[in-house]
């Protein structure tokens, strides 16, 4: 919402400066978005009088002027044809910045004659395009500020324009008078009485108005009157100036009147060329598929139920949104029908939204205007039209009746203290509300009809505090919820999520935060259906809620590879979406690795990363999260993994706690990632929470007896899993065997040549920890025999000869 200072001052008698007004508006909740003050760039220019003007000795078109200024008489060379003795001019002195020529003046020599300044044209001061001569003022004294002179004699030239943001509740501030009322309530001036007496009708209105029953909700009341014999044409200068200043194009006087009241009083009006209306006007609900060419030359087609205004020839106006071209006013209009109606906010909003029309009228009706001012607005408009365009008004026609918007709430003057924490005297509270137009009787406050947003006692408190200024609010310590040292507040799951993040960063991963939405193809690759599809995505890359974190990490990897970074380890901890219902969401942690283990170095440590790197990182995070030590491993990882180089970890076959592996080459191709890429996804919410057992650890039991380690090499079929060999060996003597680890694998053609086709060798170390006595060779041999037997039975493995 834009308005000029002079417009504001037509409603508010105030001596406050623009800055004061702007600051106060922001504080009142009418946040100032910008102030454009033309006087700012004129500051410094003063009035001067030309005492003498003589011909320049060396130039025909130049004059050497002696100019009386506030700093004495100065010599100035001037080329303007109108430079002559006796005229009052606008002076720029050396050191002044002249905006129209983008120059800071100095003392100059022009054709050999010194010049101490410049007498300016309007173009040089960016006041207009006028440049035929220098400014000649009809009045003013030497030394007077030019900005002040303009403010006094031609205020529109230096009228500051203020733009404010309007919160949805403050429809009333969409008229200059509403803004003035707020400022007056704050004490920044007094509201100027601008009432007008009703204009009596000279004859009955020949145009009838009816509202169909199906349109009563959309248009409760409709007033109008004919004014015949008007002379339309350009608006008076002051009106054109005001409209232009706030960015509106003056069209013709009759149309400008409607725009004026839209911004002056938040009272949208419509004018019809009465000679183009056939029969009476009928307000009705659309049947569907009617069309209208609007004032913006676009064709609109209506849905059933939208409120329309029609005459015998069809639709001619969209209620509260836009008028039609057919019956619109032109320069030639002599008989005008002025409409002032009240349209329902919700219906106007829905119609405007469906038709995608953003008009000043819609903007106001949907925020709610003062319904009681509808007939008064019509009288104001009539008066203005008669004053400037002449004509003879008919009586007012009316259909329907104004809605009852009277509301009364109890004013509890203690509530400001208890809710806001400000001490404001009860009489001050009542005075604030009264100044805002409330009628306060005892502890009852009647809400003014233009404040549809005030819907309860809390709103009264808000108004009182707002007028008193929240800037005055002083902070007051809030007591702790409980005395003493604060208790921990994170849930075990929140702690776990944080630990996953820090554990991954500690292992060298860089945390990413990628968008929750991905493109449809990526979503499908990772198993999503259309259940989590957006209705109105912002781009084709962001159509589905992500079912997995890996697509985002793959895209991030591709972007980084394109920037020349080859070795990447990225992770994200964030939400994934199984469907489109609230709660079909889970927080997971995922990591993605590509490239080599590190930079090239002279130690030869660099090697390509492989699936066991991803496994190591995954296991480290699982340890950090307190995952069960030995989850089961299933070789049925999802389809986006390499089928032979991936696995799923579960607590039982159904409950997946993690997946890891090398990603499928087809997936890498889809995401333009240069592989191989290794990945893991961990589901922290699937891990059981440890039972709370208190802080104390179980006692540490240490044995003084030396542990013994024995190595075994088994020849097994090439497809036997090492884990099966380990499990079998560990089961040979659960009391004595403290650990089994694989330390060598011999596989491939050379192994087959030695041990037979389809065979490989696995070497394991079995660690025996005696508990009560030192082991004898016999003991050890007995356990070793059991290990061999168990492994043989479980895997078919035989000791390598």
């Amino acid at each position, binding site marked *: 919402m834009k308005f000029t200072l002079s417009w504001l001052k037509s409603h508010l008698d105030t001596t406050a400066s623009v800055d004061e007004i702007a600051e106060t508006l922001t*504080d009142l*909740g009418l946040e100032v978005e910008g102030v454009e003050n033309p006087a700012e760039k004129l500051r410094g220019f003063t009035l001067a009088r030309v005492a003498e003007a003589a011909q320049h000795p060396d130039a025909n078109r130049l004059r050497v002027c002696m100019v009386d200024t506030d700093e004495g008489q100065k010599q100035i060379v001037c080329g303007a044809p109108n430079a002559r003795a006796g005229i009052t001019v606008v002076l720029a002195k050396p050191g002044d910045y002249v905006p129209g020529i983008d120059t800071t003046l100095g003392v100059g020599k022009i054709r050999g004659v010194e010049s101490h300044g410049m007498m300016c044209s309007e173009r040089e001061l960016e006041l207009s395009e006028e440049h035929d001569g220098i400014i000649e003022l009809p009045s003013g004294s030497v030394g007077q500020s030019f900005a002040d002179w303009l403010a006094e004699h031609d205020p529109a030239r230096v009228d500051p324009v203020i733009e404010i943001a309007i919160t*949805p509740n*403050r429809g009333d501030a969409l008229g200059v008078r509403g803004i003035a009322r707020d400022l007056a309530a704050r004490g920044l001036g007094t509201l100027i009485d601008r009432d007008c007496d009703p204009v009596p009708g000279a004859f009955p209105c020949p145009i009838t108005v009816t509202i169909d029953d199906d349109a009563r909700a959309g248009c409760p009341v409709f007033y109008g009157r004919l004014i015949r014999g008007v002379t339309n044409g350009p608006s008076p200068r002051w009106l054109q100036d005001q409209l232009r200043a706030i960015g509106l194009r003056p069209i013709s006087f009759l149309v400008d009147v409607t725009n004026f009241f839209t911004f002056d009083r938040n009272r949208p009006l419509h004018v019809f060329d009465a000679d183009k209306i056939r029969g009476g006007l009928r307000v009705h609900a659309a049947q569907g598929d009617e069309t209208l060419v609007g004032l913006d030359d676009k064709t609109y087609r209506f849905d059933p139920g939208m409120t329309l205004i029609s005459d015998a020839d069809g639709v001619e106006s969209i209620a509260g949104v836009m008028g039609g071209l057919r019956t619109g006013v032109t320069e030639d209009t002599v008989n005008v029908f002025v409409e002032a109606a009240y349209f329902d906010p919700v219906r106007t909003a*829905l119609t405007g939204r469906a038709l995608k029309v953003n008009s000043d009228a819609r903007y106001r009706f949907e925020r709610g205007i003062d319904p009681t001012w509808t007939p008064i607005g019509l009288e104001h408009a009539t008066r203005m039209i008669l004053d400037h365009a002449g004509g003879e008004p008919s009586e007012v026609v009316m259909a329907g009746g104004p809605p009852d918007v009277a509301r009364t709430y109890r004013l509890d003057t203690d509530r400001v203290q*208890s*809710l*806001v924490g400000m001490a404001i005297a009860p009489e001050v509270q009542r005075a604030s509300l009264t100044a805002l137009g409330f009628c306060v009787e005892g502890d009852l406050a009647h809400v003014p009809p233009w404040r549809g947003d005030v819907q*309860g006692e*809390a*709103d009264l*408190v*808000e108004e009182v*505090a*707002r007028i008193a200024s929240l*800037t005055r*609010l*002083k*902070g*007051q310590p809030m007591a702790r*919820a409980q005395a003493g040292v*604060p208790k921990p*507040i*994170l*849930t075990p799951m*929140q702690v776990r999520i944080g630990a996953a*993040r*820090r*554990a991954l*960063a500690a292992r*060298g991963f*860089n*945390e*990413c*935060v990628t*968008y*929750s*939405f991905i493109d449809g193809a990526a979503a499908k690759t990772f198993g999503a259906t*259309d259940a*989590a599809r957006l*209705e*109105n995505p*912002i781009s084709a890359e962001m159509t589905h809620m992500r079912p997995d974190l890996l697509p985002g990490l793959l895209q*991030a990897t591709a972007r*980084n590879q394109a*920037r020349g*970074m080859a*070795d*990447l*380890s*990225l992770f994200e*901890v964030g*939400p994934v979406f199984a469907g489109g*219902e*609230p709660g*079909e969401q889970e927080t997971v942690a995922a990591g993605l690795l590509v490239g080599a283990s590190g*930079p090239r*170095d002279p*130690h030869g*440590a660099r090697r390509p990363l492989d699936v066991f790197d991803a496994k190591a990182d995954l296991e480290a995070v699982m340890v950090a999260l307190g995952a069960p030590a030995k989850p089961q491993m299933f070789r049925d990882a999802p389809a986006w993994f390499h089928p032979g180089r991936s696995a799923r970890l579960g607590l039982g076959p159904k409950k997946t706690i993690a997946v890891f592996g090398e990603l499928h080459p087809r997936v890498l191709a889809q995401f333009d990632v240069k592989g191989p890429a290794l990945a893991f996804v961990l589901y922290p919410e699937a891990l059981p929470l440890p039972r709370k057992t208190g802080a104390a650890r179980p006692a540490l039991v240490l044995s003084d007896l030396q542990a013994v380690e024995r190595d075994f090499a088994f020849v097994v079929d090439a497809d036997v899993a090492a884990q099966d060999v380990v499990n079998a060996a560990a089961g040979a003597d659960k009391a004595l065997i403290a650990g089994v680890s694989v330390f060598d694998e011999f596989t491939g053609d050379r192994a087959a040549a030695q041990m037979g086709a389809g065979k490989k060798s696995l070497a394991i170390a079995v660690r025996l920890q005696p508990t009560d006595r030192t082991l004898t060779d016999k003991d050890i041999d007995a356990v070793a025999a059991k290990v061999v037997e168990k492994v043989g039975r479980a895997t078919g493995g035989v000791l390598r000869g």
Partner: protein
Amino acid sequence: MDDLRNRYLAAIAGAGDESALEALRVQAVGKKGEISLKMRELGKMTPEERQAAGPALNALKDEINSALAARKAALTDAALEERLRAEWLDVTLPARGVARGMGTIHPVSQVMEEVTAIFADMGFAVAEGPQVESDWYNFDALNIPGHHPARAEMDTFYMARASGDNRPPHVLRTHTSPVQIRTMEAQGAPLRIIAPGRVYRADYDQTHTPMFHQIEGLAIDRDISMANLKWVLEEFFAAFFELDGIKTRFRASHFPFTEPSAEVDIQCTWVDGQLRIGEGDDWLEVLGSGMVHPKVLEAAKVDPAQWQGFAFGMGIDRIAMLKYGIPDLRAFFDSDLRWLRHYGFSALDVPTLHGGVSR
């Protein structure tokens, strides 16, 4: 005897290695060594001669033994020096196993932890809620009915409905405020929570991304006032920016779910195009806040006649940008490794009140 002594000491001093030294030892003080033989001859001497020669020979033997030991130690030291010289390495070569470089925590995660640490001290727990949200929780319960202009202004993302499913479409939550309703429904009053998380709005330009992060604050009790809100926020900003006495300004505003409502600015100034928080006369808008609207309490089954409190919502990305001087919001979600390393935080930099919340 002096002659003997001088000869052996000279020979020991000149011995080049341990075997030469051993030969000298055998020659001098071995069983059949020169000095040992002389000592054996002591028995044939007169008591007077013996009295003179005995101590002299013993002294000579000790001296020779000491010289042998000293020379042996010197030789060992020299050998060690020689080995160390041979073992010289160019230790300016790069370290081994710098692996993939330093891991980093994203600024959004770090700042969320910082904020959590501060509010935890004031007794606020961390609440969470779904990001795909029903329109009731995202709008209606927050006093934003279907026709409210605020709905249109929020640039809401809607979830697609399967054909035949005629329920109103779910939305991607446009703010963290629905967590207010869900938490009050679940826990009732009194209550103090913050709710950080992702929020979504269909907007993408220089300063907006379709996803960003907010943190909601909510405190409900019998007598919590807006003055308490101001104190809590001032304490928060002082702790978060580590600036004592940072000033805030409350400006009247409007949010459908609070009443009265205020936008909150923090004190700042611009020096050479650089923003400085906590100094100067300018103000920077950082959050929206207010007293929870009675209709919101009612929607969450909390009796507004008994309970009142405040709520606020603040952009996490935004305060991260302000605090750590990060210029561009869009880069937060681009995952450029160079950006992640430059603006990220070490895994060990866990923000705490006792250790400091800033890095």
